[in-house]
């Protein structure tokens, strides 16, 4: 048996590696679809005018549990349409309500949901979102349907969605139910389940809305959007820096996500005899997935370069490995992994790691259930431990970080802050912008490095409690060190404030776990993605295959 271990966090938790992650069977929107198969679906209310403005309610039910998506579609002047989180009006606003909303609930939500951050919802609401139409495709689709035609497949492929959300909120924001109210619910057993549910139901609303408008325009000749085209439309999403602090502020959750990926890989590499069916499934998914790369549109030089590297990697993998390997070898996956680790870039390695999971429901599904976290359980600092313990923890877990020279202005060029206007995270140059004195505690590498220096000047036999009595300014860093001791994948092993920081690497990590595809950076600070493209339609859920993500027009 070869010596197969989890991969080293110091290699995996770098920003460039995390920024090369791809969706996999572990991703939340895929695990949501697997879990959502046996829910009942109903369109309870659909009161839209001929232009598609009005209110709609969809409900989903499992056993005695009902969730309802309440949709408000509004007229929006084109000058008011913005993807930025700082917008104040949207084409549509959505909320996932716990149960069936009463008329009073709908009236209350109508007053508040379209206002988003400046409105107020209640503990009866679970997730909140808003979305704008894709100008490129929405009108084209309605026009085509109204004239009895299907939309042009090229345009559909180019865009990939009718609507693009700009935020999906949950967990106590703007009055929404706190996580503790729902975390024990047995029918939703993975992270971000209700956010995934909202987006999936919004997708259905977008189909119903274009069909409705087309029919209103031309009651006699309009046709419905074909299932094949609808299936290949997802929901777009514009994502900014808000996601970046999340992964720093939830260290044990981050660990659980990455650990699940690493554990899946370890178990797969440890399979002595790979079954032919499993190998064929891997190959089939690999082949189909390449179509996604070919339809991946972006104007970002950064992403175009990454795609080029990926394509080159995959070609190299096919020619030099797949065509020549011996299927009957023992520990085939392990040999394959060792080859890609040696031969491919981070993009190619992580792409194939995701692919390796495809045949293995039995390995992946139990791990999905372990991807949530109770952060509060690991919050307290063990003050009775010794300063020498903490020094050891830092030397073992943060050795790469200790090599960074934080006295260099290049290494502390940026700072993270919360904007006063929108209460959203931002990053700016420390030397060019005001406000660095209000820096958020997201420069963990710098602070751990500072902590290490101070600990070295302190008596190593003293307790952490004694150390903290005069060093509480580094308390947040001390807490993290004791977390990483138990959760080795809890920390980004990189400098999050250096001049070379590419914030979208942090976004891509999170989005890959969401199951997003076709990352399209619009700058180094925000990007567009597509969710649920290729996903089964609601009436197809029961018979769906989990490899839907690779289905394309």
């Amino acid at each position, binding site marked *: 048996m070869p010596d197969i271990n989890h991969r080293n966090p110091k290699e995996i938790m770098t920003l460039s590696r995390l920024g090369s992650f791809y969706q996999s069977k572990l991703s939340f929107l895929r695990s949501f679809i697997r879990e959502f198969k046996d829910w009942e679906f109903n369109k309870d209310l659909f009161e839209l005018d001929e232009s598609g403005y009005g209110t709609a309610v969809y409900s989903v039910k499992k056993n005695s549990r009902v969730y309802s998506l309440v949709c408000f579609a509004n007229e929006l002047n084109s000058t008011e349409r913005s993807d930025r989180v700082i917008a104040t009006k949207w084409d549509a606003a959505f909320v996932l309500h716990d149960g069936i909303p009463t008329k009073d609930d709908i009236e209350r939500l109508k007053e508040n949901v379209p206002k988003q951050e400046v409105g107020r919802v*209640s*503990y009866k609401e679970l997730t909140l979102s808003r979305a704008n139409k894709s100008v490129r495709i929405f009108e084209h689709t309605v026009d085509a349907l109204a004239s009895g035609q299907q939309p042009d497949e090229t345009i559909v492929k180019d865009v990939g969605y009718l609507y693009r959300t700009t935020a999906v909120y949950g*967990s*106590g*924001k703007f*009055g*929404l*139910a*706190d*996580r*503790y109210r729902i975390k024990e619910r047995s029918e939703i057993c993975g992270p971000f389940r209700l956010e995934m549910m909202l987006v999936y139901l919004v997708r259905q609303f977008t189909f119903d809305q274009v069909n409705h408008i087309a029919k209103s325009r031309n009651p006699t000749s309009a046709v419905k959007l074909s299932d094949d085209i609808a299936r290949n439309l997802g929901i777009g999403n514009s994502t900014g820096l808000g996601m970046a602090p999340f992964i720093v502020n939830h260290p044990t959750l981050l660990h659980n996500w990455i650990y699940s990926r690493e554990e899946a890989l370890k178990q797969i590499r440890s399979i002595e005899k790979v079954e032919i069916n499993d190998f064929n499934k891997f190959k089939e998914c690999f082949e189909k997935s390449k179509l996604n790369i070919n339809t991946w549109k972006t104007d970002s030089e950064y992403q175009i370069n990454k795609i080029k590297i990926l394509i080159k990697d995959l070609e190299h993998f096919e020619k030099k490995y797949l065509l020549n390997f011996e299927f009957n070898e023992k520990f085939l996956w392990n040999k394959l992994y060792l080859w890609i680790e040696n031969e491919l870039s981070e993009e190619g390695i992580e792409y194939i790691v995701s692919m390796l999971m495809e045949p293995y429901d039995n390995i992946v599904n139990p791990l999905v259930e372990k991807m949530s976290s109770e952060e*509060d359980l690991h*919050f*307290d*600092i063990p*003050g*009775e431990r010794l300063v020498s313990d903490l020094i050891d923890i830092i030397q073992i877990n943060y050795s790469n970080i200790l090599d960074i020279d934080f006295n260099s202005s290049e290494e502390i060029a940026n700072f993270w802050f*919360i904007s006063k206007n929108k209460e959203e995270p931002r990053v700016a140059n420390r030397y060019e912008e005001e406000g660095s004195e209000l820096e958020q*505690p997201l420069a963990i590498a710098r602070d751990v490095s500072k902590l290490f220096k101070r600990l070295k000047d302190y008596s190593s036999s003293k*307790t*952490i*409690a*004694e150390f*903290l*009595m*005069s060093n*509480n*300014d*580094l*308390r*947040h*860093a*001390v*807490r993290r060190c004791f977390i990483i001791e138990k959760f080795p994948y809890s920390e980004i092993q990189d400098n999050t404030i250096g001049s070379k920081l590419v914030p979208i690497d942090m976004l891509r990590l999170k989005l890959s776990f969401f199951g997003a595809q076709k990352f399209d950076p619009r700058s180094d600070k925000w990007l567009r993605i597509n969710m649920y493209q290729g996903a089964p339609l609601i009436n197809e859920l029961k018979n769906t295959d989990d490899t839907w993500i690779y289905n394309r027009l």
Partner: protein
Amino acid sequence: MRTSSEIETISKRATKAAGFPWGIAEEVGKNIKSLELLSISGIENLSLYLEQVKGKETFGPKEISKENNIKPNSFCPFYTGSALLDSASKVEEIKKLTLHSINFPILLIPFINRLSDRIGKKIKLQIDDHNFLLNLNKFIATDTNLMGLIIENAKIIKIEIQENEDSFKDKVWDQLYELSTETFVEETDRLKENAAGAGLADND
């Protein structure tokens, strides 16, 4: 109604803005959330305290001992609570300790409640004339109406670790046990032989 998540976030940020370090602000965020879940006026006490100390120096203990005093100053509930929590094993060893003069002592309660959980023992807390029994961060028993209670300063705070002892008499326990045995079935010889997993003799 403000959500727990909002209460934690805003408390944390406000504490930082008043001049406390992020690590302390994180503690305060968790604590105020827990006070408000217990319907104790965490937000009110916090707001008043931060207003009082914003930009000023505040003081915690330099070590934890039986008698703790920083005359002529008063203890800050955050630094004091954090120090007590960090020093859980020492507090358990000392068993009974006194703090002289502490500002906004209601803000200390969640730290002591967490301390009770860390140590695994109930803790008696006395804030001047108000008595509390903190139980493993699960609930608080008190002789005081805590709703809306704001205490700007307490002269004496006493903390006493309780040993894990029953709160009832043996006689009462015996009575209850007797009653519980009425759910048992009297074992006949036949049942002794057939109903148990092992045999009557077990000499191998």
